[in-house]
């Protein structure tokens, strides 16, 4: 089996699982309990907070653990919206993940206006448009760090500059970048940042929201006094320990891994683009996640390629995992100006920790035949 769907989710690193195991049974008390067993759980929790703070270069008390990236995104947008009633405009981009887009849409119900910043052909947000839209009525600007479908990396510093000129909160969905590329919240102008452990070989069901000291937000879930009163619910200690371990590993290995994975990814692109005519690379040629290769294969639809690859034990994705179940072409590719048929004909290979050159070479060997077979079947194709 060749797994090339790391942007959808990653296997949990066995070192991470190892680190989690003691916290299921042996050290399994409630971190809020005042007895010694509770203290041990609390210590593990705070150890992970330190590891994550180190990765983001934040303070420990700026980290709130959540159940994943979606909850972090929802907390950022709904939490800041409900914590005030002056500013009624939310700005986001046209290529956000559904966790941001749908949440913004939902806020219309509460009287918020939502503006989506367009992107260019590479998926980079239009800074002039943003500049014109940010005003004193704007509460929050939510623009992702890197896009999950095409991997394009947005210019956070420049966005932060524009946003802060108007005292607006800058939130970034960094679910696809944390653990993959360096982030420094102190220098990047980010006020809030969402992340999810399962995107960098941590466990599923755990994530975090970074919130710069002083930024006000209502909790998404109310209840006990966990997480400084900002995220209620008995803490998922094994999950948090796993997230912490994933951060430690990322800190150690990120830069070497990034190089290794970029090589694999580029080898794949070279291999298939030499063998298959009329391929289009989607996303920014350079300012792009090192692991992401999104291509549009002319005359062929994405799902049929996925299924053919699947039959040969190769697992990729067409657009994002979420859009694969739907009929609509990826909103990201359409926003980047791709015609519908090219958007429908897109395929995402996303590499990661456990991929090898052999995996890549197998895809290079198999993929051209698949495309050929499907093109011959296509009424759009005239060889």
């Amino acid at each position: 089996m060749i797994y090339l769907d790391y942007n959808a989710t990653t296997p949990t690193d066995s070192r991470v699982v190892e680190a989690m195991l003691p916290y299921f049974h042996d050290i399994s008390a409630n971190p809020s309990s005042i007895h010694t067993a509770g203290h041990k759980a609390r210590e593990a929790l705070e150890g992970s907070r330190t590891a994550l703070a180190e990765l983001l270069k934040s303070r420990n008390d700026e980290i709130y653990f959540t159940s994943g990236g979606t909850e972090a995104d929802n907390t950022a947008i709904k939490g800041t919206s409900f914590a005030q009633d002056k500013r009624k405009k939310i700005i986001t981009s046209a290529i956000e993940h559904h966790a941001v887009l749908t949440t913004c849409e939902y806020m219309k119900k509460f009287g918020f206006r939502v503006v989506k910043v367009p992107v260019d052909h590479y998926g980079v947000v239009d800074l002039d448009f943003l500049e014109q839209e940010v005003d004193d009525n704007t509460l929050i600007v939510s623009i992702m760090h890197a896009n999950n479908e095409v991997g394009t990396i947005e210019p956070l510093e420049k966005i932060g500059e524009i946003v802060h000129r108007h005292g607006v909160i800058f939130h970034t969905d960094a679910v696809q970048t944390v653990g993959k590329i360096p982030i420094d919240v102190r220098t990047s102008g980010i006020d809030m940042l969402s992340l999810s452990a399962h995107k960098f070989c941590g466990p599923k069901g755990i994530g975090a929201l970074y919130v710069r000291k002083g930024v006000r937000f209502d909790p998404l879930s109310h209840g006990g006094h966990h997480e400084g009163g900002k995220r209620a619910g008995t803490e998922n200690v094994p999950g948090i320990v796993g997230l912490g371990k994933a951060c430690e590993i990322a800190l150690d290995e990120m830069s070497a891994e990034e190089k290794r994975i970029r090589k694999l990814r580029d080898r794949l692109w070279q291999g298939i683009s030499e063998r298959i005519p009329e391929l289009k690379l989607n996303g920014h040629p350079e300012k792009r996640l090192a692991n992401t290769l999104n291509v549009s294969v002319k005359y062929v639809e994405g799902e049929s390629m996925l299924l053919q690859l699947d039959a040969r034990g190769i697992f990729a994705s067409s657009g994002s995992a979420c859009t694969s179940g739907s009929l609509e072409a990826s909103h990201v590719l359409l926003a980047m100006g791709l015609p519908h048929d090219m958007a429908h004909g897109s395929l995402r290979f996303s590499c990661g920790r456990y991929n090898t050159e052999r995996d890549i070479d197998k895809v290079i060997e198999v993929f051209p035949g698949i495309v050929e077979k499907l093109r011959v079947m296509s009424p759009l194709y005239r060889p």
Partner: protein
Amino acid sequence: MQYSQKVMDHFMNPRNVGEIQNADGVGTCGNPVCGDLMTFYVKIEPRTDNLDMARITEIRFKTFGCGAAIAVASMASEMAKGKTLSEVVDLSRDDVADNLDGLPPVKMHCSNLGVQAIQEALKDYLTKMGRRDLASKIKGCSKEEH
């Protein structure tokens, strides 16, 4: 997408793929905007006395589309082959889906597409035969679906 064994079989080994050079009828439904496009080519054994009893002797298709679209086209082509025009017109999308042991709900529109594209080919044939009256009675592509 969880497809049945039958769907996967027709997807991996589609029957009757291709074109027919001197087809008696050609029909296309769908739209690349929606991600599905099907073209059917048919050869008809003529029956001058009763066109309804004319028979599809050969059928070929081309498809741009998802796994379900390809399987549907393949299955529909098999089901239509050798059938009379009146029999083919009676084929429903459920017949095709049933013969494929079902389709995921979001993919049901594909089975419609298969039946409709074949009907379009029949309309084309009837029109060429000068029987616009009969052709107009066949539904063909539906605009609402695509």
